[in-house]
C-alpha cells in the first residue's frame, strides 16, 4: 500500500511519510499513526516517571519541591495530556483487539470515531478531576 506512493517500504523516508506526514491517508492510517506516537511518548514517559519516583527514595524534599511545579496549571495540563495519551492508546488497543477477534475490520471507521469520542469525553472528565484535586 505504502509503496504505491513512491516511497520504498522500510527506511527513514518511509517512516517519515508514514508517521509524520500521513496526509491524504485513510482513517486507518491516522489511527495507526496516533497509536504509534502515543505509544512512543508513553514509553518515554515510563522512564521520566521512574526518574521522578527515584527522588522519593533518595531526596524526598526534592520530590516535594517538584510537586510545586507539578501542581501548577502547566503541570496539571501536562497530566491531562498524559491521560489523553493513555486513554487513546488504551481504547485504540481494545479496538484493534476487537477488530482482530471479531473480524469487524470493515467497521474500522466508526470504531475509530467511537475511540476518539470516548477519549475526548473521558479526558475532559479527568481534566475536571485533576484540576479539582490539584
Amino acid at each position, binding site marked *: 500500500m505504502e509503496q504505491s506512493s513512491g516511497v520504498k517500504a522500510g527506511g527513514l523516508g518511509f517512516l517519515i511519510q508514514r508517521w509524520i506526514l500521513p496526509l491524504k491517508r485513510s482513517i486507518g492510517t491516522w489511527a495507526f499513526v496516533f497509536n504509534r506516537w502515543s505509544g*512512543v511518548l508513553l514509553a518515554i514517559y515510563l522512564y521520566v516517571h521512574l526518574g521522578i519516583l527515584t527522588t522519593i527514595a533518595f531526596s524526598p524534599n526534592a520530590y516535594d519541591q517538584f510537586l510545586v511545579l507539578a501542581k501548577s496549571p502547566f503541570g496539571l495540563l501536562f497530566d491531562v495530556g498524559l491521560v489523553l495519551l493513555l486513554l487513546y492508546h488504551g481504547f485504540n488497543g481494545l479496538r484493534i483487539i476487537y477488530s482482530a477477534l471479531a473480524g469487524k475490520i470493515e467497521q474500522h471507521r466508526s470504531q475509530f470515531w467511537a475511540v476518539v469520542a470516548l477519549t475526548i469525553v473521558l479526558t475532559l472528565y479527568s481534566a475536571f478531576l485533576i484540576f479539582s484535586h490539584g
Partner: protein
Amino acid sequence: MQHTEREQQARQSSGWIWQAVTGVLLIVIVLLHMIFHHFEEGLLSASQVVVHVADPAIFILEILFVLVVTYHALLGVKAVIFDLQLSDSTRQKVSMGLTVLGVVTVIYGVILAFLIRSAAV
C-alpha cells in the same frame, strides 16, 4: 528460507498476542494506579506516596505495573524499530538490547519500590 520466514511470522504473531494481553492487563492496572495515587487525593507528597506504597496490595500492584508496562512498552518499541526493515543480524542486536534494557528497568523499578516502601518503616 521459507522456514525462517515462517518462524519470523510465528514470532511476530506471538508478539502481537503478548502485546494485546499485556495491553488489556495494563488498562486494569493503570486504572487502579490512577485511582489509588492520583484521583483520590490529587498529587501526593513524598510522605503520602511512602504510606501508599507501604500498603501490601498497592505494593504488589506497583511491582506488577513495572513488569507489565516495561514488557508492553519495549515490545512496542521493538515493533516500531522493526518497521525500518532491518537485517536479521541488526534485528537480533535490537532484540538483545531491548531485552537487557527491559531486565534492567524491571530490576530498577522493583528495587525502587522496595526502597520507597522501606522509608515507611
